């Protein structure tokens, strides 16, 4: 594989085949907090994921973005059923897998795979690359024509590694190469859906593009659907046809790439987009929003709209009523927003920047006064 170190041109979104591969409705995951002296009892919950709805079509890539701790990874782990959902429903290809046992999941296991964030922790240091990649085939009793070893060499070649590395151990590889091994393992079972949990955020920036391009190649050539979890907006934009924006355990906005990046409606999406720098020195036409404070605690989330504590448009209604995730007037088909007072669908610069951080505001004011 030629080592591309720059991102390819953004490919046009493929026409959705319309078939919903994965459907998630009202998904919840509460982690209990136990407290009390001697007798442990449940004193509260961390509401990591609190009512999330989305679907992924066959062959499509859904990007999931949001701040750290907003429940992206937990959602990924719920979809792959590494965690048991507290509430809601996960259905794969029309089959409810929300509370399926290991035996019931067996036929589906080979179709949903996962790529992990940390390439140093996701490979067993005591197994050769060959046995790591062959492991899933062994477990599922798959015997490809020509034998497992040949298939493993084939997979190594697909992900751009030397097939001769079959007998080596993970510690002999760099981070990027390890992540490729992780990709090969995920591909070993010919999955239909891959949950990629921040697959490149642990990698060097120069390696990120390689891995993302590899994933994109895999997606296009093998027609695999992706749930692509990341916090790097540029990479998600590059990779995903549809984007879901999460905030504090909820999806605040979901839509196709053009709608989210070109005409976002939710104030949080605006803030998120404006916070990611664009590599264009002449570009001054973007709006500038600087939020203040931290994400509220998921143990005791704000009432109504969860973003209201940091929102510049918040009114009384936001505290009492939770905004539903609906299609707003003027939005494209499939572009849903959960906001009572949505923003204009543009990211052009405003007349006045929104700077909610008091310290930053003071600095800028002082700078304006003494030119």
């Amino acid at each position, binding site marked *: 594989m030629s080592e591309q170190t720059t991102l390819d041109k953004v490919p046009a979104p493929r026409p959705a085949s319309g078939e919903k591969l994965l459907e998630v409705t009202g998904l919840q995951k509460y982690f209990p907090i136990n407290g009390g002296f001697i007798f442990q009892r449940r004193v509260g919950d961390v509401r990591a994921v609190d009512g999330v709805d989305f679907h992924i079509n066959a062959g499509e890539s859904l990007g999931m973005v949001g701040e750290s701790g907003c429940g992206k990874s937990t959602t990924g782990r719920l979809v*792959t059923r*590494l965690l048991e959902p507290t509430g809601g429903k996960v259905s794969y290809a029309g089959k409810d897998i929300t509370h399926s046992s*290991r035996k019931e*999941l*067996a036929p589906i*296991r*080979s179709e*949903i*795979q*996962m790529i*992990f*964030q*940390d390439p*140093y*922790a*996701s*490979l*067993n*240091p*005591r*197994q*050769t*690359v060959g046995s*790591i990649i062959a*492991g*899933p085939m062994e*477990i*599922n009793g798959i015997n490809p024509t020509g034998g497992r070893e040949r298939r493993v060499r084939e997979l190594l070649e697909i992900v751009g590694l*030397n097939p*001769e*590395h079959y*007998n*080596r*151990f993970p*510690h*002999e590889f760099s981070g990027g190469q390890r992540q490729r091994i*992780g990709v090969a*393992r995920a591909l070993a*079972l010919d999955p239909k859906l891959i949950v990629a949990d921040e697959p490149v955020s642990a990698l060097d920036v120069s390696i990120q593009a390689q891995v993302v391009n590899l994933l994109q190649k895999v997606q296009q050539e093998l027609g695999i659907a992706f749930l692509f979890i990341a916090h790097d907006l540029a990479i998600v934009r590059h990779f995903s046809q549809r984007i879901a924006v999460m905030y504090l355990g909820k999806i605040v906005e979901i839509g196709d790439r053009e709608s989210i990046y070109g005409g976002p409606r939710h104030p949080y999406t605006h803030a998120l987009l404006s916070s990611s720098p664009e590599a264009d020195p002449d570009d001054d036409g973007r709006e500038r929003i600087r939020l203040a404070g931290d994400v509220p605690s998921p143990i005791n989330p704000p009432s109504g709209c969860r973003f209201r504590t940091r929102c510049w448009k918040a009114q009384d209604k936001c505290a009492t009523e939770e905004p539903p995730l609906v299609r707003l007037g003027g939005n494209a088909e499939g572009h849903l927003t959960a906001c009572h007072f949505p923003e204009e669908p543009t990211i052009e610069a405003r007349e006045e920047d929104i700077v909610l951080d008091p310290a930053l505001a003071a600095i800028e004011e002082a700078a304006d006064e003494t030119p």
Partner: protein
Amino acid sequence: MTSPSQAAADAGDLTLEPEGEPGTPGNKGTPELAGRTPRQLAWLRFKRDRVGVICAFVVGFFILVAAAAPLIVKLYGKNAYDLYGQDDGLLNSSGIPIKPNGGISSDHWFGVEPALGRDVLALLVYGIRTSLLIALAVTVISVATGVLFGLTQGYLSGKTDYFMGRLSDFMLAFPQQLFFIAFSPVAISLLVNPGEQESWWVRPFVLISVQFILGWMSIGRLVRAQVLSLREREFVEAARISGASSWRIISKELLPNLWSTILVQATLLLPVFVTAEAGLSFLGVGILDPTPDWGLMFQTGANNYQSDITFMFFPGIAMVIFVVAFNLLGDSVRDALDPKTLR
């Protein structure tokens, strides 16, 4: 008696970084791209540790002596049961060897035993054999139980973990020496009917089981802690996602990462059990005369040290060398398996 678990507790970092990448591709004329296993890397590191290698030879020598005891004694021409001192008149009227230095001579290289007059070399060789066999049995059983216990505890977690943990805490709360001394006679009287002759296996069996009952907890706790950290690692999740059963996860993903800890712990436990066994025999609740035993030799030596100090030297020096070598070997093994630990 100190537990080695402290020393081995930090042996758990499980990744091994390659040192100097010995298997780099493109080296002159090496077409085979075989990777070096973490074990091979550890072996390379171990070979560079001179103290470790010397200790390995010393330990190997002791094991060889124990294993080949009948052969050695045959070549030497004496056995551990004949009373040479009495038969050949090597002892004076109060049972002390007549010749200087505990009766060392060309016939009896290490001298003769006071009072009974057995050959010290034959006695020592067989004594090492008895003690090592018992200690080895205790180590194997304790390590196997501890690993199984710790694995179950760590893997199942939750309530099981809690109750199993309390059980091992309870066992740890027993004062070991006192328990051994108090319970060995009780256990023996349970196995032997009053008035009957004690079978040969009773004492070793009791020694093994009594030491085992209080010996498996340290490794159990260590393994539990390791499993707790390992089971959250992503490669275990990856195995779970591909549908692996718990048994497969334990045997293929967890156990291979535990071997180094188990190995280190076992090498550090064995000398502890050897000294404990010798201590029990010394105190009179272990092996009894006339069976040759390391601890019994100390007992005889302690009774006669004022008139014949030489007899104390041979078992004493042998045991010091053995325990020091085994502990240093354990340290070296740990260092070889885990180069990142700083001493």
